[in-house]
């Protein structure tokens, strides 16, 4: 980023200017942070008992969805969409649960590495099929969601398996203070380790480039096919992380895919990632996941009929996109 600024202006911008520039660029994310803070305050107001334990529960519940959202964000930024996120998470979750059952704690480390590789491979398979056949992303990933769901049933046809103790302990409880859940730290670390170097690399730039304009990216010398496959492989990697988060939080694997595909799409849209590609990041979607989870908690606190919470989730999804497109239309008119 700073390199781009240097090229445009020969003088270094002042600190105030840098901050205001950063604020403008991250307006959506900042608004989400404010919204999240508002929701937390509101939750505390309507449920005075809301404390560290609930915050830990929130973080554990949000962890797999947040990882699914990051997975979806990467592929949508690169101009695709992956409807097989839920199935890939189910596959990696049951694989880790089956392999860890009745095994030593040390072997679990091998399993974690193996499942991460599995995620990369199945993601790369999705991407390769899209690049080689040139069939639209949505059709391929829809079809592959059947394939991965079927593979999941081969691995495990009824809920079962197990998880190593250290693995379960990784995301439960808190660290340093009661208010900082371990699951949150895991989320930040995992995303930071993968995303920050990626964002600053040539590859990260290429991801955004092929998402915003494939042709221009191609003419600028980006290997579009290779970048697309890598984007899908990274999505697979984050699905593997999400799948293992499911295993760690439940201590077992379930072959029924959760509603993660849908939730991931909702979160990235709310998180400011453009479905047209090329725009957005992963911080927005992660915050969006926490907001959506808090909405669910608040509805329980307010004793709203739980069936209405489905209605409200759908309405939020539509409302956010609607709001976004109304803003975009105004900008065009102005």
């Amino acid at each position, binding site marked *: 980023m700073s390199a781009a600024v240097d090229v445009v202006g020969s003088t270094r911008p002042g600190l105030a200017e840098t901050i205001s520039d950063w604020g403008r660029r991250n307006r959506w994310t900042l608004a989400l942070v404010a919204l999240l803070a508002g929701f937390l305050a509101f939750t505390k107001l309507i449920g005075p008992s809301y404390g560290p334990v609930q915050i830990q529960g929130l973080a554990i519940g949000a962890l797999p969805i947040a990882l699914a959202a990051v997975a979806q964000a990467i592929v949508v930024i690169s101009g695709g969409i992956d409807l097989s996120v839920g199935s890939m998470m189910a596959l990696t979750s049951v694989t880790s649960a089956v392999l860890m059952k009745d095994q030593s704690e040390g072997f679990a480390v091998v399993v974690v590495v193996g499942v991460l590789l599995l995620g990369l491979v199945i993601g790369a398979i999705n991407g390769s099929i899209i690049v080689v056949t*040139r*069939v639209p992303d949505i059709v391929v990933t*829809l*079809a592959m969601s059947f394939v991965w769901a079927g593979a999941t049933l081969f691995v495990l046809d009824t809920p079962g398996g197990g998880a190593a103790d250290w693995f379960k302990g990784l995301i439960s409880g808190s660290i340093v203070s009661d208010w900082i859940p371990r699951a949150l730290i895991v989320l930040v670390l995992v995303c930071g380790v993968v995303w920050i170097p990626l964002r600053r690399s040539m590859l990260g730039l290429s991801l955004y480039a092929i998402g915003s304009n494939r042709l221009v990216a191609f003419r600028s010398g980006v290997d579009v096919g290779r970048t697309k496959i890598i984007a899908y492989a990274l999505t697979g990697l984050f699905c593997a992380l999400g799948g293992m988060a499911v295993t760690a939080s439940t201590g077992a694997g379930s072959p029924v895919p959760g509603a993660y595909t849908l939730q991931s*799409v909702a979160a990235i849209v709310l998180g400011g990632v453009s479905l047209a590609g090329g725009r957005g990041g992963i911080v927005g979607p992660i915050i969006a996941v926490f907001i959506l989870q808090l909405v669910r908690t608040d509805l329980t606190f307010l004793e709203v*009929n739980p069936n209405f919470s489905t209605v409200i989730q*759908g309405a939020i999804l*539509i409302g956010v996109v609607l709001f976004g497109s109304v803003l975009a239309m105004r900008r065009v008119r102005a």
Partner: protein
Amino acid sequence: MSAGVGAAGTRNPWLTAEAWRGLFRDRPLIPLLGLLAALILVLELARPGIVSAQWLGVTLRAAIPLAILAGCQTLAMLTGGIDLSVGAVASMAAFVMATLATDLGPGAAIAIGLGAAALAGLVNGVGIGIFKVHPLIMTLGMGLVILGLTSVFQLAMVQTPVDVPDFIEWLGSETTMTFLPNNLLVFVPIAAAIILGLRRSGYGRLLFAVGDNPIAARLAGARVWQVLVALYVISAVFAALAGFLVAGLVKTATIQLVEESVLPSVAAAVIGGTSIMGGRGGYSGTIVGALILTVLTTLLIVLDMPEAARQILFGIIIVAVAAAYTRVTGES
């Protein structure tokens, strides 16, 4: 193309790869029917004697609701959209109809079910056509909203028994002369309306135009938003009719009755040769696609394939057929 023409002069044109490619491109129905015939042949070989008049009736009966839902997808996909709310709309309409039938009588219950579906379609259409919400998001979100509202309705009506009217059961599950399911009475008019509408009516042309190039369509004077609003209302009403037929077939209604047919309906349209990018396709291919999926399901059950293998094969076939289309049409 020119190479194919040149080769035709020297060799039998039917033997060149180009001619085959042309066949796939211009008459996709022929290879699709070939695939369907091959599947039926394999089925007969796997279990001799299974293919009979009764089998035909059962297969058609199962394929028809899927074909109607796939019709909704075909129409939406022609404009470059998709309707993932068909499952929720169909289940909702069937559930509302079956719940209200005892108190209000079948006629009023059916009308209310259709009206509720049309309303849901209107919301979809307004979101997609006027507010330019991505169809995938809009219909996924509406699917959630409808599912939630239906379960609220279910709680409110928990005292009322769910009873599918006899007429709907007759329509959905009985067959005439063993091989003609009665649901053809609903399907044939719908199919005729879609096929003739797409080929002959101005509205049909508008659907293709919007999908091919929405900006060009708008500049040519088409009111794109009106086309889209009408499209999603039509789609929801057809979905509701499919929901009634499924309720008649299984003789009960639940709030997620038709949900599992949503992805197969997209698959049937894709196999039938409709492009998800819009502007290319038709309904006759989709009907064959729905038949292929139904026969394939039977075949995999007959072959005693585990559920896992069935899903994997299902996925692979969708990708393979879509890839074949992309190859012959040269689309990217």
